[in-house]
């Protein structure tokens, strides 16, 4: 065996410090990085422009009257109170309809269903497909359904909630499934090995552990429903409502619909109101998104 000294002798020297600019700093990679940055920048600048635009246009109308006043033929007197309350009614109803249903469906698919069974495979495929169905088609569905059961005035809270529920049900199912899947199988095994039944395991271990994920997914889905206008348009929700909605069968309008309605008015004041209501809606969505992210970061366990 050679000695270390021997073997080190005669090492060729080629400098590592090349004259050229370094790997990541060469023109190509740099330009590429700039292009990537720009992709994000365009999106963010767009977002900012949109917000600034809204603030400039609607800022002056963003005040108490927007929250407390009813619509009016005069922009100076008009507010979005019924629309705000209508949105709350519709979204709350949607939440009550969808979350239990979506969570139950997800539990079935993830915990109980035999994944190879044709029925469950159909359900699975279906859920994926439903998530991509255009929202306006859900409006058509709700419209046809209400017509079928003979409801005449389709512009009612439960009708709107029905359309939006169908719209976000697949989203909630998918989010819940992901949350459930993130619960490690060791937890399930541990529970089952103690003699717990499948449902006990699901109810006492899997579900509690996936609550943050379900909450995050549901909030995001509901925030999408909150901003939807198209399916409600089909139910004829484009109305002047001068009272507070007060029940499932009450007539209603929602913020997006009110915004759409106001922009259709001739008076400039209404356009400002529309912008102000958009600020409100955007604020609400920011809040919901923020809450979802907070829950995700705060409660989601790293197993």
């Amino acid at each position, binding site marked *: 065996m050679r000695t270390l000294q021997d073997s080190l002798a005669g090492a060729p020297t080629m400098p590592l410090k090349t004259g050229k600019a370094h790997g990541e700093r060469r023109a190509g990679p740099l330009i590429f990085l700039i292009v990537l940055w720009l992709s994000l920048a365009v999106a963010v600048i767009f977002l900012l422009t949109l917000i600034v635009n809204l603030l400039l246009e609607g800022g002056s109308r963003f005040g108490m009257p927007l929250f407390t006043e009813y619509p*009016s033929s005069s922009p100076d007197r008009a507010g979005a109170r019924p629309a705000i309350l209508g949105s709350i009614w519709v979204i709350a109803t949607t939440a009550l309809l969808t979350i239990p249903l979506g969570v139950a469906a997800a539990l079935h698919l993830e915990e109980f269903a035999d994944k190879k069974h044709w029925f469950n495979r159909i359900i699975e495929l279906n859920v994926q497909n439903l998530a991509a169905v255009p929202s306006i088609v859900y409006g058509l569905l709700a419209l046809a359904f*209400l017509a079928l059961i003979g409801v*005449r005035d389709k512009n*009612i809270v439960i009708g709107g909630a029905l359309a939006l529920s169908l719209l976000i049900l697949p989203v909630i199912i998918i989010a819940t499934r992901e949350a459930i899947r993130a619960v490690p199988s060791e937890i399930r095994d541990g529970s089952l090995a103690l003699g717990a039944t499948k449902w006990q395991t699901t109810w006492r271990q899997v579900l509690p552990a996936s609550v943050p994920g379900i909450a995050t997914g549901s909030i995001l889905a509901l925030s999408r429903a909150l901003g939807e206008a198209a399916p409600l348009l089909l139910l004829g929700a484009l*109305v*002047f409502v001068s*009272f507070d909605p*007060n029940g499932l069968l009450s007539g209603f309008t929602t913020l997006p619909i009110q915004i759409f309605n106001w922009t259709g008015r*001739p008076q*400039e004041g209404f356009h400002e109101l529309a912008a102000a209501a958009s600020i409100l809606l955007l604020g609400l969505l920011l809040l919901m998104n923020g809450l979802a992210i907070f829950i995700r970061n705060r409660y989601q366990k790293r197993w």
Partner: protein
Amino acid sequence: ALVLTACGGQPAAGGDSADGGVSGSVVADGSSTVAPLTEAAADFFRDEAPDVNVTVATSGTGGGFAKFCAEETDISNASRPIKDEEITLCEEAGIEYTEIVIANDGLSVVVNPENDFAKCLTVEQLNTIWGPEAEGTVTNWNQVDPSFPDLELALFGAGTDSGTFDYFTDAINGEEGAIRTDYSPSEDDNITVQGVAGDEGAIGFLGLSYVEENPDSMKAVEVDGGAGCVAPTAETVQDGTYSPLGRELFIYVNNASYAEKPQVKSFVDFYVESEAEVAEAALFIGLTEEQKTTAQDELATLG
């Protein structure tokens, strides 16, 4: 489902509330042109009777009558008189109603503010532009009048469900519903406003209120119905010289509703009583003395 049908969609059957004021709901639908009037009335009415819920939807005059004759609404807003087939529909359903002229309007033909050649158009010229024969052939202003510049026409107007559409086609093309189809029809008049504002060669038709409210976006042309060029103004409309496009706006009241629902009676009474303020707030032209008396007489017969 049964419950929904039974309740007919709106809460609270209505009636006199304990404190003596009226309560309950009033459902209005129909013309989008007339809607601002009814909304203004509802707006003012809220100061009188805060417990009455007035909803105003905008399905267009035709759509409104369809619902009205299906007994879904108490009041139908209309920008033209009821048609024979609609009368039949209501008769078949056993609906009795009363027609009330509630305001006047000058159906305005509007062009882009930059347009300095089309100051006055004859009914023939309008027919040349809008007639069914024009479809696909009349596409340039210079085809309307050789003195007009070489500028492409862009056409905007009311959609087929609207009374404005019916009235305009009848007045200009001699037959209700007869019109070229290659224009942008919309139930949302603001689309017409934006369309005309955004295209130098644009021409459109809509209610006078939109013109008054958007002087920067468009200007109304004078119309020559055979007796010289007349601009649409409050006076020319009221005295009938703005012909053939001066028109009356109507509400149709369900007699049974008026008799049986105190909230409908007090709302309609209030509406007719304060038509001048309402018309002003909604940017329409009020009734003449004669028209107002007729309206009050009509109501009196209903008791």
